[in-house]
């Protein structure tokens, strides 16, 4: 009985896309996501889908735009510098209300940075990223299996809301191998929706037009307000997070992705020392699970510690959520540095001393 497959995060995302009915993938080589491109090249051949190694990230995202415009599930992936290039297309996808899945296997930056794991694209992922007034759904897995599940969810949510969805993980998760339940792929049923807006040829109907240009006075404002309502609906219904030992926690660590797994070890070690520590792990980094932190602040929690692989980006969202009610501390490593559980423990002990 072989119920589990050993896969890298990159491969799990690729197989999840196939299971979600994605039959169009365009990508450009960049480390540390190359395994995903290679996986899609092989699998699209087997599934009679379309794989294109594009001439640039710009071309890749615009090919995805075209594929999505005709109603097909489409994906592209890259790592940080390449995602910067895709921002033009992501803004157009949001403006044209086209679904698409974009995978970012983050590496160190700014600039060319390095190819080590990083979470430094948090701002880019959660603030829109490109120009204009829009949001992208941003899902942040912490496990290889979860990378598959959240990729499937990304397709479903992108379709449901006609909005680009990102799967955001660090380079380490992209490259590390973990067992994944086969049923993750076999039991999943994509939530396919009707797409009457898709360009299929104006047969028996008026022409469909996909556009983001709204020149008539007031038209764009009206459209922006409608987008805003959509984002509110996503915030109200699609916020996802995991709580670990938070009910009585005096200090709550907030960490996502791989960092949350390290923080979990620190929590367990501190609990053994009778320290009341808990963990909140945002699964959606946009919409951000503000309420989870807000609720803790109303109960036993006296302080928060945000741990990230950056110089402090998500910490701003936690501070907004806590709204001054409790102190919010930060510990991070950047440029490819990975926090250790010992270092996190030390940070907690320092906070306890100061309380």
């Amino acid at each position, binding site marked *: 009985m072989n119920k589990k497959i050993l896969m890298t995060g990159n491969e799990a995302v690729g197989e999840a896309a196939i299971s979600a009915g994605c039959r169009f993938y365009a990508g450009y080589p960049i480390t540390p996501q190359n395994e995903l491109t290679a996986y899609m090249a092989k699998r699209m051949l087997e599934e009679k889908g379309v794989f294109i190694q594009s001439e640039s990230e*710009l*071309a890749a995202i615009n090919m995805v*735009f075209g594929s999505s415009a005709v109603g097909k599930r489409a994906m592209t992936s890259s790592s940080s510098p390449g995602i910067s290039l895709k921002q033009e*297309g992501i803004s157009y996808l949001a403006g044209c209300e086209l679904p698409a899945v974009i995978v970012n296997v983050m590496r160190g930056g700014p600039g060319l940075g390095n190819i080590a794991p990083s979470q430094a694209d948090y701002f880019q992922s959660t603030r829109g990223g490109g120009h204009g007034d829009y949001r992208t759904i941003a899902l942040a897995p912490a496990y290889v299996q979860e990378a598959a599940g959240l990729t499937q969810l990304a397709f479903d949510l992108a379709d449901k809301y006609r909005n680009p969805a990102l799967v955001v993980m660090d380079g380490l998760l992209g490259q590390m191998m973990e067992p994944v339940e086969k049923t993750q792929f076999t039991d999943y049923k994509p939530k396919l929706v009707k797409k009457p807006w898709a360009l299929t040829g104006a047969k028996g109907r008026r022409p469909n037009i996909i556009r983001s240009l709204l020149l008539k006075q007031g038209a764009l404002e009206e459209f922006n307000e409608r987008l805003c309502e959509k984002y509110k609906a996503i915030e109200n219904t699609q916020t996802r997070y995991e709580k670990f030992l938070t009910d009585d926690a005096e200090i709550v660590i907030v960490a996502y992705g791989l960092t949350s797994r390290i923080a979990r070890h620190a929590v367990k070690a501190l609990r053994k020392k009778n320290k009341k520590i808990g963990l909140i792990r945002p699964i959606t980094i946009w919409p951000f699970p503000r309420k989870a932190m807000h609720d803790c602040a109303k109960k036993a929690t006296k302080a928060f510690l945000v741990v990230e692989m950056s110089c402090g980006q998500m910490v701003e969202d936690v501070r907004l959520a806590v709204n001054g009610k409790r102190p919010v501390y930060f510990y991070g490593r950047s440029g490819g540095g990975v926090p250790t559980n010992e270092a996190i423990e030390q940070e907690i002990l320092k906070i306890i001393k100061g309380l």
Partner: protein
Amino acid sequence: MANVLKKTQSLHDRVTHYCAGCGHGIVHRLICEIIDELDIREKTIAVAPVGCAVLAYDYWNFDTTEAAHGRPPAVATGIKRMLPDRIIFTYQGDGDLAAIGTSEIIHAANRGENITVIFVNNGTYGMTGGQMAPTTLLGQKTKTTPLGRDKIREGYPLKISEMLAILDGVYYLERVSVHNPQGVRAAKKAIKKAFINQIENKGFSMVEVLAMCPTAWEMPVKDSVKWVEENVVKYYPLGVLKQNAQ
């Protein structure tokens, strides 16, 4: 009496936003006549550019998407690969195709994507008020070349069609002009061929259409026609640049 003239079904009956003497209206009409004649309106999907023709979908009676500046060939690639039995064309200006979108057009052409590209070259950025385009002629005055385009300062006018013609992936490439009636007739023939090629799965076809922009050129319409005849056609000779024998 027989009705010899009828309205083009693929073209909406609307007041034009294009300036007097502009070439876009002629090219729109030609494309729509051809789509009617080939009876492909219900399976045509167009990709409109950024520039004056961004509003093309206000006139076209078939499915159309916009695309970011320069990206129509990439968008068309995504569309055609997923719906190979539909007829896909991009409509692009010289800023779109020959400046910001050079990479996209070269690689779509080189992959031999089975699409039709209509490239309208009027040597300027019309919508933004008449800046220098990659195709602006030497000596031609624009908002950003007040002394006229200088080969030392701004480089030479880009012969993008000649560049593309050498690519193995290109099946058919012709340059035409719509500055006079003979030119318009030749343009229609060429554009029709570019669509038929796609229907017959021949591969990448492109027609470069030399057109007037009297407003940005700051010329009376009559003079703009003369400008094309005396200057533009000399630098960009008309005719077939590539016709794959296969």
